[in-house]
């Protein structure tokens, strides 16, 4: 190896990018060449200075600010769902109302939102302790906010309130409070009661969501898709694998009063009004149909929420 070859390879050597053989040749040359050794030392010093010169350290404030900004961005996107077109005469008033809503929502999100308070709980509900990860019993008067997970056991029902919004959990139900006013329904069913100014958002693990402004029962159903087709690789015979079935748990929203905005996992939007139920296809497409049974959420009556 000449000095010229070695000097071309020194950066690669310093960064650990050379294969064993060329690296050994470079090392052999360096032993006998003080000029190239000086060059190698200079590159090493430069790399050391580069690595020492990361000027910005990690910061809790920066991370918290980023998470708050993300929650606000998510909230802003969600807020757009329930804004309906209005007649021209209503535009200034509607604009003022939307502005106020956004300000209130932003303040709520910035402060972590109004927590949910347990107004009623029959026996056997638990929450997951954030620090230890253990499950502990839920008691009336406790408050929960984003990051909490709640489970009701068989025979247990629970009523949570936040402002004028309420969330009622039937037995054997599990919800994850993922953001202020946003839940993921993991199992069971809930009754969401919320005015238009304090909508509640409930989503499933498949990322379909409903935004509730009214009185709406939200439950889960299994939806299936069959996957079939051939795999083709150039130069080889096509392979036809056995069809497989995929199963997802997807939300069903039964609207008694008010309305829900159905937000499919790929951003498809649809509205379901009182007397309708909203569902999602396997591909996340929202659909509506008339309610088969107009009695919605009678299981929640004993919890005594204001209809």
């Amino acid at each position: 190896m000449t000095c010229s070859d070695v000097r071309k390879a020194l950066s690669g050597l310093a960064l650990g990018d050379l294969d064993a053989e060329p690296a050994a040749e470079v090392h052999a040359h360096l032993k006998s060449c003080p000029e190239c050794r000086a060059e190698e030392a200079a590159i090493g010093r430069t790399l050391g200075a580069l690595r020492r010169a990361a000027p910005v350290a990690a910061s809790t404030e920066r991370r918290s600010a980023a998470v708050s900004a993300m929650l606000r961005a998510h909230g802003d996107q969600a807020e757009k769902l329930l804004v309906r077109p209005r007649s021209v005469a209503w535009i200034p008033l509607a604009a003022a109302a939307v502005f106020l809503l956004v300000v209130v929502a932003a303040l709520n999100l910035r402060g972590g939102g109004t927590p949910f308070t347990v107004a009623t709980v029959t026996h056997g509900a638990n929450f997951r302790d954030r620090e230890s990860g253990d499950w502990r019993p839920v008691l009336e008067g406790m408050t929960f906010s984003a990051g909490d997970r709640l489970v009701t056991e068989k025979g247990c029902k629970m009523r949570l309130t936040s402002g004028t919004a309420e969330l009622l959990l039937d037995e054997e139900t599990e919800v994850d409070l993922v953001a202020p006013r946003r839940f993921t329904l993991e199992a069971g069913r809930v009754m969401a009661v919320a005015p238009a100014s304090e909508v509640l958002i409930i989503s499933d693990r498949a990322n379909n969501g409903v935004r509730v402004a009214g009185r709406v029962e939200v439950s889960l159903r299994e939806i299936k898709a069959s996957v079939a087709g051939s795999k083709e690789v150039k130069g080889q015979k096509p392979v036809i694998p056995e069809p497989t079935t995929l199963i997802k748990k997807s939300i069903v929203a039964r609207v008694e009063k008010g309305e829900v905005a159905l937000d499919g996992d790929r951003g498809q939007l649809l509205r379901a009004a009182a007397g309708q139920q909203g569902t999602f296809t396997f591909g996340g497409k929202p659909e509506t149909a008339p309610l088969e049974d107009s009695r919605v959420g009678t299981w929640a009556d004993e919890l005594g929420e204001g209809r």
Partner: protein
Amino acid sequence: MTSGQGEDMNDDEDLLRRCARGDAAAYRELVERVEKPLVNFILRFVGERNVAEDLFQETFVRVVKTLGSFRPEASLTTWIFTIARNLSLDWLKAKRRHREMALDAASSEEKGRIIYFKDVLRSGAAAPEDRAEATEDERRVSANLSKLSPIKREALVLRIYAGLQYSEIARIQNAPVGTVKFRIHEALKDLSQLMGAGEDRNPAAQGG
């Protein structure tokens, strides 16, 4: 190795799914995963601390707004760095435009001048010498990094400060892996020469 990458992809998918639901814990996990390399990468790119902090926040806002456009063939980290890089470039272009307008007002001769992308990068990467907390290393590195060609500097910064793999940088720069390696090696060599020249000059400057 393959199963490790598979697990990473599964982790990414799970994290992404939780992010799409607006899960605050998932957002925190995502931010923690890339915080330090990302903020340092942006700082090296734009050269101004306050701007880097703003662009860091904006990157994550953009992540939330464009979750649907993420394609699993790239890693989440690569995707986030690509967003940050594009935002940084936009900011540098806007800054350059602002400067151009000021120049136009001062001299009509400047009107009609074409703004070249490489100039935009060079002008934006001013050394943060005015920061009191800048260490000697940082001052020397910043001053000399800004003299590198933009494309080499970007590749080197993505490797050293963001800790990205060559294949990830190749995806961001839309170039073959071999080209990216060459750019990084050349960047380190050029930087070493620049810093060596600075060391040679300093004693003379102090003495004179």
